[in-house]
Structures are given as structure tokens and as C-alpha cells.
């Protein structure tokens, strides 16, 4: 069974990386129109180095994504813990309320946020993008952490409390470590949701303050070049380095191998 399982996993990963491989390859292809066959060129990477607009937008994207990731993961995990309590009333309604941010098309949410934020004086800019992104990412966090909580042995916290731990201690020292894989997954998703969000960011961007996906979206009409592939590739490479460092920090046995 095991070789078969591993083969399946490898196949799935290969599928996930097909477009990524194409993206990288086209960033290294001389043709501005993604024509085949491939003619190797570093032209687009070189162009990138001098393109302040793209670099600044990338920096903004990372900043918003990082804040979104931290805030959404924190508040979403708390909400997931509360939603998992057996004596909670109105669970169905509370869970249903998580759906509109995911289910309403971004164009509606984006327009709605813009109108509301302008009206209330919150305004546009990076701060309102963060406000919007956190709202969008939090339901993902709750829905990813939730199943992880349900899978925990039910009486652990009670056991810890009966041994004299305060509820907060019991959560911190017993539940949280066991929950870590789900929390990490949720955080990675929250980051991804923000980093890829272009519609809401588009509405909430001010002239001159933009993010990478907005830049790409705005450039569609005039036609964007493989420079976009190059910056995506660079960003991906940076992510790999970052994650490798993170995985190393997580220690021997890895962050998933707590059991």
C-alpha cells in the first residue's frame, strides 16, 4: 500500500506544480507573447530589477499578506475554539455567517467595502486593504482549524483542568500544541488568500499605493509581459527560502510530527 500511496502523492504534487513550472519557464522565455518553442532569456528578470513600480507593489503585497496572516490566524483560531465548545448555542447561525465572505463574489464585497469605508471615513489605502483581507481570510482559518479541533481527544483540557491548570494554561499547554498542524495550515492559507487577492485590493488601492495582483490586473488591458512571470518566480523562490528556514526553526521531527 505504501508505495502506491506515495506514488499518488507524487502525482498530485506534480499536478499542482504544472502551472508553476510553466510560469517559471515563461519567465525565462524571450517571447513577450509566451510563444513556443522556448528561447532562453534572462531579459525579463533584468527588466524587473529596474522596475520600481513592480518592486514597490510586491513589498506592499507582502506587508498586507503578513499582517493578514497574523491577525486572521489569531482571531480565527480563537473563534474556532469557541465554535467547537459543545455547549455553544446558535452554532449553526454563527457558522453560516462565515459563508458570505467566501461566497459573495469579490466584486460585490469589494464594491461594498469601498462604498462603506469611504462613507465612514475609513478611506482607502493599505490599512483598509488589511481590514478587508483579514475579514476575507478569517473564515478560511476558522474552517481549517475547526476540523483539527474536532479530531482532538475530547477530554484532554478537562483532564488538565482537573489537575489544577487554569483554562488558559490548559489551552496553551495541551490543546494548542496538538492543534499546531491545523493552525499552521490555516496561517499558510490566510497568507495565500491575501497575497492573491486582487479585486478587493483594486477597489481599496489609492493612486500610487498598489499591490502586485492589482498591478497585474490593471495591466491586463494593455497586455502584460513575462516580467510578471519573473516577479512571481522571484517571489516563489523567496517563499521557498523563507519556508525552509521556518521548517528548520520548527525543530527536530518537524512541526507536524507532534504525535
Amino acid at each position, binding site marked *: 500500500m505504501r508505495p502506491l500511496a506515495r506514488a499518488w502523492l507524487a502525482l498530485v504534487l506534480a499536478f499542482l506544480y504544472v502551472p508553476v513550472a510553466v510560469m517559471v519557464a515563461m519567465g525565462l522565455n524571450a517571447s513577450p507573447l*509566451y510563444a513556443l518553442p522556448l528561447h532562453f532569456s534572462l531579459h525579463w528578470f533584468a527588466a524587473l530589477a529596474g522596475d520600481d513600480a513592480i518592486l514597490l507593489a510586491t513589498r506592499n503585497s507582502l506587508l498586507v499578506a503578513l499582517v493578514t496572516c497574523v491577525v486572521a490566524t489569531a482571531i480565527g483560531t480563537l473563534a474556532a475554539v469557541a465554535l467547537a465548545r459543545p455547549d455553544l448555542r446558535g452554532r449553526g447561525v454563527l457558522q453560516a455567517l462565515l459563508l458570505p465572505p467566501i461566497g459573495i463574489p469579490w466584486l460585490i464585497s469589494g464594491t461594498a467595502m469601498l*462604498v462603506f469605508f*469611504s462613507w465612514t471615513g475609513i478611506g482607502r489605502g493599505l490599512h483598509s486593504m488589511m481590514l478587508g483581507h483579514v475579514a476575507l481570510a478569517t473564515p478560511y482559518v476558522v474552517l481549517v482549524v475547526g476540523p483539527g479541533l474536532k479530531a482532538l481527544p475530547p477530554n484532554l483540557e478537562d483532564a488538565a483542568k482537573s489537575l489544577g491548570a487554569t483554562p488558559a494554561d490548559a489551552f496553551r499547554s495541551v490543546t494548542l500544541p496538538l492543534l499546531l498542524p491545523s493552525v499552521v495550515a490555516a496561517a499558510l492559507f490566510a497568507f495565500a488568500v491575501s497575497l492573491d487577492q486582487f479585486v478587493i485590493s483594486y477597489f481599496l488601492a489609492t493612486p500610487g499605493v498598489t499591490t502586485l495582483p492589482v498591478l497585474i490586473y490593471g*495591466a491586463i488591458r494593455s*497586455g502584460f509581459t513575462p516580467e510578471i512571470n519573473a516577479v512571481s518566480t522571484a517571489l516563489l523562490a523567496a517563499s521557498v527560502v523563507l519556508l525552509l528556514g521556518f521548517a528548520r526553526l520548527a525543530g527536530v521531527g518537524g512541526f507536524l510530527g507532534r504525535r
Partner: protein
Amino acid sequence: MGGSISRRGVNATMGAALVAAALGARSRPAAAAETITVLNWQGYGTDEAWALKLFAEHTGITVRHDYFNSEPEMVTKLRSNPGAYDVALINSARTRTIAADGLIEAIDLSQVPNAKDLTPALRDHANLTEGGKHYGISWVWGMNSLAVRRGVVKGADSYAVLSDPAYKNRAALFDDAVTEVGIGALMTGQSINAPTDLGAIKQRLTAMKPNIKLIWSSESEWNKAFVAGAFDVAIYWSGAAARAQKRYNLPVDFIVPKEGAIGWLDGLSVPSAAKNKAAALKFINFMIDPSFYLQWAKDAGAAASANAKAMSELAPDNPIRTIHKAEYISALQFMSTLPDERRKAFVDLWSEMKAFYAG
């Protein structure tokens, strides 16, 4: 259902406040005397970096940009940000409507010296004028018409090629209601701006179904799909076709068939609430200057300039010049003002057609 809301009523309810605030009501900090803000499509001439540098060197005026991704968004931005913009790019089909709303003001041509070189038919086009006053300075014009793969499609001189069984599954349409309904209008001998028989248009569009492979919405999408060999006949923009020929060496032939083409004219206007009108006019004058246009056409490839002098300075074999023949200007039907109801009817028809193509 309920009764209509009076204007005062709207103001009293949150509606107007919301919309007034919509699409960025954040007011600009008191503008520096020598800064103007231009509202345009991204990557459409006015934001060419070299041009802005040159303009700043000559006049000391810094140009900033805000962009829109659809015409309705442009109108909303103008309406909800009074004072934020000094120059706006407006498709002349909407100029009169926007002027009627009081959002843009008449321009004194004597303040725009280069206007004397503009092709008179474009400069004084009915789309841009009201009561003899100019509400927009004609800047660039072009056509939406037929583009075919050279060597594969031969002798096409009619939009009928879009429903020719020889090109089953080999055609692409532009995802724009006004253009596609306009094509149907041309095919049935009607005015593109005021067709009376939408049923006949629907019939023509319906007949194209077996051929339609792709409904495109951006230049890069068109070019990439063309390079990948997805289609052989399509509706395309004249300026983009010139770019495809000159810059990317694609085997594209742009054709104005016997039914005619859909013309469009883009103008530059000054919002009534602009804070720096003198600088705005200087910038517009620079934008219609042949020196700017020639460099722009060379660097990026553009649609046709409304400035006759600029066009005459292009090389005779330049695709921009061979595609945009001067005689078309008088023969073309240009996209003009559409009453809301008619525009809605066009949009409804096109949505229905798209759903039909998909089914």
C-alpha cells in the same frame, strides 16, 4: 416598486452619500501648484514615463495618474471625486452625457495651440461639441473591425466570414455589448448607434455560434490566443492590430469590410472641478503634439492620432498609417451617445447571446 425618490430624498438617504463617497472619496491633500492628476486607462499614452519626464522638464508640472478598468468606473470616479482630477480620458461616445451632468467643462481652443492641426472632422466631431463649444479635445481614434490570419483567410470582405462554415470553431468576438451589437447593426445595414431592428441583429449574432471559440476581453488575451493558434477570424482593435503587425510580427491582416467598421474617438477633457486647469490644458496640448505622438507610436504602437500633421509624419508603410486611412474618418460610423435605455438593451442582448453561445 415604491415611488421614485426625489433628488432631495436621495441626498437625505444614505444612497447619495454612499455614491458620492464611492470609488474613493478620499480628498487629495491641497494640491501643490504644479501637480496635476490624470484619469485614464493604465498604459494608454498619458503615463509614458519618458513623456512625463519631458513634460516636467519643460513646464515644471508633475503628472500623477489614477486608472480605471471600465468606462462606468471612470464616470463614477469623476462624479464621486470632485477636484481630484485635472484631465480625464473620455470615450467621445460618453462626452456629451458627462458634460450634460456638469462634470466636465467647455475648453477654449485658443488655450490649446496644437488644436489647429487636428483633423477638423475629429476636432469638431458632434460627439465632442455642444452648442458650438468643445467639451473634449480629440486625441486618438481607431476602429473595431475584422482581423484575420494572413494566408489562412483569403479574400474576406464581409463580417459574414464570422458565420462562414469554413471557419467552424475558428472565430473570436470581443466581449463588449456596444461593439458586437454594432457589428450586427452593420451587417443588417443599420446605424450602430440607433438600430431599430434588434431582432435582425440577434439573428446574425446567433448564426455565428458554431464558429465562436473565444470571447476575448483584452489585447494580451487576443495576442496570446492568436499565437497559440486558437482562432483565424476575429473582431479586433485597429491600434492593437497595428501593434501586432509591427511589434510582434504576427500574421494579422486588419480589414474594414464592405459593411464598414465601428469607429471610436477618445478625447481629453477637463473636469469642471479641476484644481489646476491651466496646467491641465498645457498637458492636453502636449498630448496632441506630433512630437509626443510620433515617439509614442514608435515606442509602444498606438491607434491613430487625431492630429493630421502627426499622422502625415509617420512612415508611409507604418501599419498605423496603412490601417487608419484618412478617408475612413468621413465614411465611418463613430460610437456616439447612447441613451441609458438603449445601452441597457444592448447589454441585455449581448448577455443573452453569450449565454446562448455557452449553451
